[in-house]
């Protein structure tokens, strides 16, 4: 979706603010928001794509004025209600009222290390042949879907070239919305800076974006 998360090429955010000591967390609530988000992800109630969609669905003024872990916390609030684990009323009151719903798994501390080390791979068996091969010119789709997508706005309707083939991966546009994984080919596509940014572009710039086959047409 064309939400506030789609930041590539936007202007006016000012210089990059560097910190001296760069703590991982700047307050206790940031630690809690981080850990609760990971632990709830481990219940298997929603996918990583769905949680990304939840965050980017925050109203643009909220998204852009929230710190990073605040975006996580607000995204999680929406997820637990949307997936029926918590009611609006409970969230408002901060008190449990309705019975808990069954979840696939509750992460225990003894399992944290193995769960993190295992991760969750998103490559899947290949059933159909890839449509493109390395070196093929491709044009990205002109599209403005209201659903989740990983084709950034700045790279739509632009010609690039297939540079890498990453295999078959879960398709976020479907997986974010409970439509199953619908795995498809994932490519590394290279674009010339001037083809994206026009004649003001740094002439030495090239951009690489990982794009799923449904985003691409032959050019």
């Amino acid at each position, binding site marked *: 979706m064309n939400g506030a998360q789609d930041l590539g090429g936007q202007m006016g955010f000012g210089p990059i603010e560097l910190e001296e000591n760069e703590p991982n967390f700047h307050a206790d609530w940031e630690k809690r928001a981080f850990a609760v988000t990971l*632990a709830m992800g481990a219940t298997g109630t929603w996918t990583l794509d769905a949680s990304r969609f939840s965050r980017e669905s925050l109203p643009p003024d909220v998204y*852009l004025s929230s710190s990073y872990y605040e975006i996580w916390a607000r995204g999680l609030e929406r997820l637990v209600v949307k997936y029926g684990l918590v009611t609006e009323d409970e969230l408002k009151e901060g008190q449990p009222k309705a019975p808990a719903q069954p979840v696939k798994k509750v992460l225990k501390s003894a399992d*944290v290390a193995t769960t993190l080390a295992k991760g969750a791979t998103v490559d899947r068996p290949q059933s159909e042949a890839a449509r493109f091969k390395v070196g093929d010119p491709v044009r990205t789709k002109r599209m403005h879907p209201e659903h989740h997508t990983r084709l950034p706005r700045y790279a739509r309707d632009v010609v690039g070239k297939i540079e890498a083939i990453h295999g078959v991966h879960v398709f976020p546009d479907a997986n974010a919305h409970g439509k199953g994984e619908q795995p498809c080919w994932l490519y590394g596509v290279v674009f010339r800076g001037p083809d994206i940014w026009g004649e003001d572009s740094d002439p030495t710039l090239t951009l690489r974006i990982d794009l799923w086959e449904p985003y691409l047409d032959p050019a």
Partner: protein
Amino acid sequence: MSGHDHDHDHSELSDIELRVRALETLLTEKGYVDPPALDELIETYETKIGPKNGAQVVAKVWTDPDYRNRLLEDATSAIAELGFTGRQGEHMVAVENTPGTHNMVVCTLCSCYPWTVLGLPPVWYKSAPYRSRAVRDPRGVLAEFGITLPAAKEIKVWDSTAEVRYLVVPERPEGTDGWSAEQLAELVTRDSMIGTGLAASPEQAKESA
């Protein structure tokens, strides 16, 4: 903030602190999360998983040509050889800087980052200024990090939109012939593995020691 009627006991707490506290309490009391697991998650990323993992990978690349080839061929398994696997590092690709090319990594859509080798990303990596500008004006961004590259050097920017995560292998600093992998790892900065910095020279390393 929506008023002050709810925080009479904790008037020092901000709206977000109250919201996160309420959310954690609710999810704990409903049995969806186990508090010791939360502490373990925090502890892990505060003390165990960080950029030193990535520095070991780079130092090995600099000292072991076979390892370099394996890493460039299949970074996921080459990195797993050193024991770094898992969350946000399931599908790794390594990209190597050369005299003619500089690589830089960003995630314009969220905050994709190779946790397994670099730990959690710094605030600037997740911020709007970096995410908006890295793809359009990488030289301007590099200048803010104190880096000026030769005008002819190609800049490759990697926008991580998939679950593929990128690790930049910086150029090995001059004057390090004969150094051990352990010594070299000390020169590998976190930023050099994102592409917003270069590896430290032996002189710089001495100054900061």
